[in-house]
């Protein structure tokens, strides 16, 4: 097995699918010769040619609209939105069009589009380059939202997304791109969509997170361990739709939950998960389901981001609150 960073695993997944299926096309702003602004598509144009890996004109609605059209011709587009803060430009193309094409064709058309995009804070980017906007897409039926937190999951989930016949928005947390390496098989494999993963087993409390917050939750769990609190950490991996089976099973065991998201508190994935838990398992709860989020402001353009972003201390605090309830 190879040791890869998350971004290497992502490149490897695209390479695998470009090789497996000649209908896979990779495109977006700067993804060709430049290999993407983060180098996620590094070398792919050289290997697979400009016909299959190419730069687009600068227009996000164009990129996704084009993808919808290409899918009607049997292609499997893997477009990139350079930073997810630019998704507003493509909201109609994604939520108003791609997500509704199967419905609009009476269930007959496949829309196998995988929209990749970097997101997330902590890397000192300018305005609209760090926002966690997964909730905007999650509200739309007909499209999945997938967010890996490890190199292994990143490759397997991206391959699954590309092979899936419905649209997927696949979000890559920028802070995880190169911050650590993990074991990634060189051969192809898939990780199931719509399935959460228990990243750490525990019996006293369940910490639910996704993206970079999985690592903050794991760090919090290590600290809590020193105080005799044994936390289970669930990585949602697909944030829409959510795998409630895994969550409820864990809740039945721990009876306490902290939901963690990097996004603002208002109307996010967290609120959705929490309300489902109380609907499905209220009698198993020993404390209110608590949450850790960012405040309801826009993402601070560089300055103040350390305080703005939730961290493991915030998680520890909430976990203790739940335990001592």
């Amino acid at each position, binding site marked *: 097995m190879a040791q890869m960073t998350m971004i290497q695993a992502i490149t490897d997944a695209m390479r695998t699918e470009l090789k497996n299926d000649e209908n896979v096309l990779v495109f977006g*702003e*700067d993804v*060709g*010769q*430049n*290999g993407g*602004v983060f180098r996620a598509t590094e070398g792919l144009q050289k290997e697979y040619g400009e016909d299959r890996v190419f*730069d687009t*004109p*600068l*227009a996000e*609605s*164009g990129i996704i609209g084009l993808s919808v059209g290409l899918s009607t011709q049997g292609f499997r587009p893997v477009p990139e939105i350079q930073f997810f*803060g*630019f998704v*507003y*430009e493509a909201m109609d193309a994604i939520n108003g069009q791609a997500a509704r094409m199967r419905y609009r064709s009476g269930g007959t058309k496949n829309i196998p589009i995988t929209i990749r995009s970097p997101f997330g804070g902590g890397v*000192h*980017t*300018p*305005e*609209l*380059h760090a926002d966690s906007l997964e909730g905007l897409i999650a509200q739309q039926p007909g499209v999945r939202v997938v967010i890996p937190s490890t190199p292994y999951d990143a490759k397997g989930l991206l391959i699954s997304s590309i092979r899936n016949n419905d649209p997927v928005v696949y979000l890559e947390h920028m802070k995880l791109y190169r911050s650590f390496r993990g074991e990634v098989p060189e051969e192809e494999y898939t990780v199931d969509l719509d399935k959460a993963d228990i990243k750490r087993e525990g019996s006293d409390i369940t910490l639910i997170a996704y993206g970079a917050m999985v690592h903050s939750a794991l760090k919090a769990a290590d600290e809590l361990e020193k105080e005799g609190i044994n936390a289970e950490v669930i990585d949602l991996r697909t944030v829409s739709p959510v795998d409630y089976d895994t969550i409820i099973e864990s809740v039945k065991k721990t009876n306490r939950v902290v939901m963690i998201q990097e996004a603002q*508190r*208002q109307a996010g994935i967290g609120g959705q998960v929490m309300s489902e838990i109380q609907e499905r398992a209220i009698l198993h709860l020993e404390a209110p389901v608590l949450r850790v989020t960012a*405040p*309801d*402001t*826009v993402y*601070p*353009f*560089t*300055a*103040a981001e350390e*305080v*703005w972003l939730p961290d493991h201390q915030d998680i520890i605090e909430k976990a203790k609150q739940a335990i001592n309830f």
Partner: protein
Amino acid sequence: MLKNSIEDIENQFEIIQILNEEGEIVNKEEMPDLSDDDLKELMRRMVYTRVLDQRSIALNRQGRLGFYAPTAGQEASQLGSQFAIEKEDYLLPAYRDVPQLIWQGLPLSKAFLFSRGHFKGNQMPEGVNAMSPQIIIGAQYIQAAGVGLGLKKRGEKAIAITYTGDGGASQGDFYEGINFAGAYKANNVFVVQNNQFAISVPVEKQSAANTVAQKSVAAGIPGVRVDGMDVLAVYKAVRDARERAINGEGPSLIETVTYRYGPHTMAGDDPTRYRTEELDDEWEKKDPLIRFRKYLEAKGLWSEEEENKTIETAKEEIKAAIKEADGVEKQKVTDLISIMHEELPANLKEQMEEYKEKESK
């Protein structure tokens, strides 16, 4: 059918130059009406802004600035166009257009605060009619149409000027902006600084159209393509467009053909991945400062002393401005909470208390 000649259309958009690379006036009829003092001031601003660019890059590398998009190479396009507008005009810049904002009256220290992501860098001083630099490519273009229409409805003798790049001219907002402004004959001047690349993507890949200026045809507004390394040509084009707009004749589109010498931004872009050294050299020969300096020196309006004095002044003022920016209180989450709405809604009231406590630790 389909017999109209694209070539004929494109031929109407040849590059207009007034000052050639040797510093000679090659187009007397278009020579703008500028006094000797104006000419010297334009040179001073270009030299100053080149120093500001070099210092900003250095400060960024030292971690003392945040977001920065280099400007060297584009001085004629940026400063010639800004020189053609008036204090009452309204400026909608993109992220690379900080120099225009500065010469329109934004204090340097605020430009540095903007780079650092501090909200005070976005607060325009009294009398500076401008938005802060736009990050979303193209968004300023359609907003500019609204500003231009507003000025027209108010009967102001003022215009809205906005900027984007060759890449930006592919965005829907670009087309919508010039189309709306045209439909309302709004008080607008639209500038596209065609610096040949949108990050790594060459302008040839943006469109089948060989010029940006010709996109004006579809919007039904006049367009012109000027040498963007020639400060006189840029000035004249914008001045004429402004004149038209305040006379109620509607918007214009100006393409300035230029080049960015540096990386796209200071966040890891490596131009050697997509540009050759030969291309860089070719463009550096067209440098806007070199030709204007030659022209002014021949007229006895500029000297090495003046150049050095300008450089020294720039360095001192930059140093003082950084010091001033350093002295501004660090941005807090509670600052952000307080600027989200005019009045704090309930959720933010709660969070204000929570973060006050966090920040006091």
